[in-house]
């Protein structure tokens, strides 16, 4: 799947309002995104510059083991005073992690994202990592899950990642050249051996690139983190940026090397210089031509809790959590109210006004509609849509539910709109398949539709609608919902009679 990349060249921030230096991704970058991607990132503080002012994240330290060595990392991760990646104060079992997440989510309703980021490599601890995700997706379905990895074991776990509905993966990619890699990674553990130098770096790079591609093919959003190491990969990162963008990564986060002798890392002890703020910015700007850059990263600990840049981990140590009594069902209700308020505020800032469900009789049932949309409007020809965005209209309003992929059955020829060009056999089966993809939807909105699919859709009980071409999706969906409401079909039979 090809993912559009957010543009940094869009209009500059007005009142983007980030107090810290080094912040400054175009805050409206999200408005360029198709709805289904915007919906995925708008409340993710590590993916959206704007969201990080309002939404919080937490990491649970269930993954201590690692399968590679990086020269900026020291595996003596146990420290309560340092704030940097790879450091935690207490390791958790999956069961402890669940308890902690539920406690934090109940206490901090803005917490929308749970990540597993270490202190080792999450995918080098597959049992502990996936056990945690598995339990969380059952017990806290309103929390987004994400994982970060060095990529070495990524390809073998991509299917499991997709299975647990993990929508966001961060891969740390510092190079695409094994010679440079050998200066960053002294060894990897691979197929029961410790493999050193260029040979090890080459395997790691191949696995990272393969994993990246497999994830983007499955529609999973990938952010790439790179550590800027002056004199080692500083010039090279421009090429990295270009390549990961080509492979479908969605955001590139270039972070400065942290190297202090007291951390005991190779670069620290060897007194390797960290980049200056100016060097970092220059490189981020140079990469920005190829790729959307993230500039609000705070390089947090592998057990951080709270808004980016703050850490409330001390309030949620295991001894404190053990005596907390959490009613998560009740918490979820409070959380939804808080999330909706924030999203509404963000939408208002972006100039998005949600269509109001005025005049819809109370008790009306919700309706699912499929939209052939692009850039927020009903823009695509039915036969050209690579995917349909599924929206739900209800007396509460319109909300985005998911996207469903289709297979193109129309090759794009002029007369294709009438559905009479492509050979019969292939046309038939693909069109039928696409109609099956729309199961559960009552309406399909598109800019235009051919005669043949029109008939088949109607026969399948799905009303084709080409009357809202180029209108904003949510307004179009609400307009159609109101039309259906006016027929009285949204109310249970007895009540609709009463109304009539």
């Amino acid at each position, binding site marked *: 799947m090809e993912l559009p990349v957010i543009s940094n060249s869009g209009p500059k921030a007005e009142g983007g309002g980030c107090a810290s230096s080094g912040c400054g991704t175009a805050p409206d970058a999200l408005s360029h995104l198709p709805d289904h991607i915007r919906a995925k990132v708008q409340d993710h503080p590590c993916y959206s510059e704007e969201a990080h002012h309002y939404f919080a994240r937490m990491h649970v330290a269930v993954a201590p083991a690692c399968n590679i060595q990086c020269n900026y990392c020291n595996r003596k991760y146990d420290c309560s005073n340092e704030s940097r990646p790879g450091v935690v104060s207490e390791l958790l079992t999956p069961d402890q992690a669940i308890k902690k997440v539920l406690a934090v989510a109940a206490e901090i309703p803005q917490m929308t994202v749970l990540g597993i980021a270490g202190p080792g490599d999450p995918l080098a601890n597959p049992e502990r990592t996936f056990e945690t995700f598995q339990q969380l997706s059952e017990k806290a379905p309103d929390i987004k899950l994400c994982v970060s990895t060095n990529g070495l074991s990524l390809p073998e776990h991509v299917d499991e990642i997709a299975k647990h509905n993990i929508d966001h993966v961060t891969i740390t990619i510092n190079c695409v050249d094994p010679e440079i890699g050998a200066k960053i990674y002294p060894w990897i553990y691979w197929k029961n051996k410790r493999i050193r130098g260029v040979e090890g770096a080459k395997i790691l790079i191949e696995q990272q690139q393969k994993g990246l591609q497999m994830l983007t093919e499955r529609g999973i959003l990938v952010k790439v983190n790179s550590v800027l190491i002056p004199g080692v990969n500083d010039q090279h990162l421009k090429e990295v940026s270009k390549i990961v963008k080509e492979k479908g990564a969605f955001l590139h986060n270039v972070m400065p090397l942290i190297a202090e002798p007291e951390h005991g890392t190779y670069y620290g*002890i060897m007194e390797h210089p960290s980049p200056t703020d100016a060097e970092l910015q220059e490189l981020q700007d140079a990469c920005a031509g190829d790729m959307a850059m993230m500039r609000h990263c705070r390089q947090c600990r592998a057990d951080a809790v709270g808004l980016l840049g703050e850490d409330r981990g001390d309030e949620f140590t295991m001894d404190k959590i053990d005596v907390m009594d959490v009613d998560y069902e009740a918490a979820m209700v409070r959380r939804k109210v808080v999330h909706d308020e924030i999203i509404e505020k963000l939408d208002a800032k972006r100039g998005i006004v949600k269509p109001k469900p005025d005049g819809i009789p109370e008790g009306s049932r919700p309706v699912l509609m499929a939209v052939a949309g692009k850039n927020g409007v009903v823009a695509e020809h039915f036969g050209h849509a690579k995917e349909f965005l599924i929206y739900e209209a209800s007396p509460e309003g319109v909300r985005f539910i998911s996207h469903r992929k289709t297979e193109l059955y129309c090759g794009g020829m002029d007369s294709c709109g009438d559905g009479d060009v492509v050979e019969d056999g292939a046309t038939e089966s693909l069109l039928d398949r696409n109609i099956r993809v729309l199961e559960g939807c009552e309406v399909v909105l598109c800019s235009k539709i051919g005669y043949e699919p029109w008939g088949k859709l109607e026969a399948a009980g799905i009303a084709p609608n080409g009357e809202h071409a180029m209108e904003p999706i949510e307004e179009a969906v609400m307009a159609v919902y109101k039309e259906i409401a006016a027929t009285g079909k949204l109310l249970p039979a007895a009540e609709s009679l009463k109304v009539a």
Partner: protein
Amino acid sequence: MALQITESCVNCWACVDVCPNDAIFQDKPHFLIDDMKCTECLGDHADPQCAAICPIEMAIVNELGEFLNPPGSLTGIPIEKLKEFGLWREAA
């Protein structure tokens, strides 16, 4: 014959997951190897797996007390630097 874990261990679990004999167990202050179960991976792997994945120098020793990963062997930090930072010690 069996390998042993020293006080350098940071309890990162990496060796536990790769040991073919389930010989490694959690203990305080650090993980330990059950010498009745440890075979040094003979017959299973070319290299003892705990020592092949362990990220900490000096954390695994053989029966002679020799480090399987001596100082500097994993990080590449020169001996004189390790000494300067108090990170070097002689085998038992």
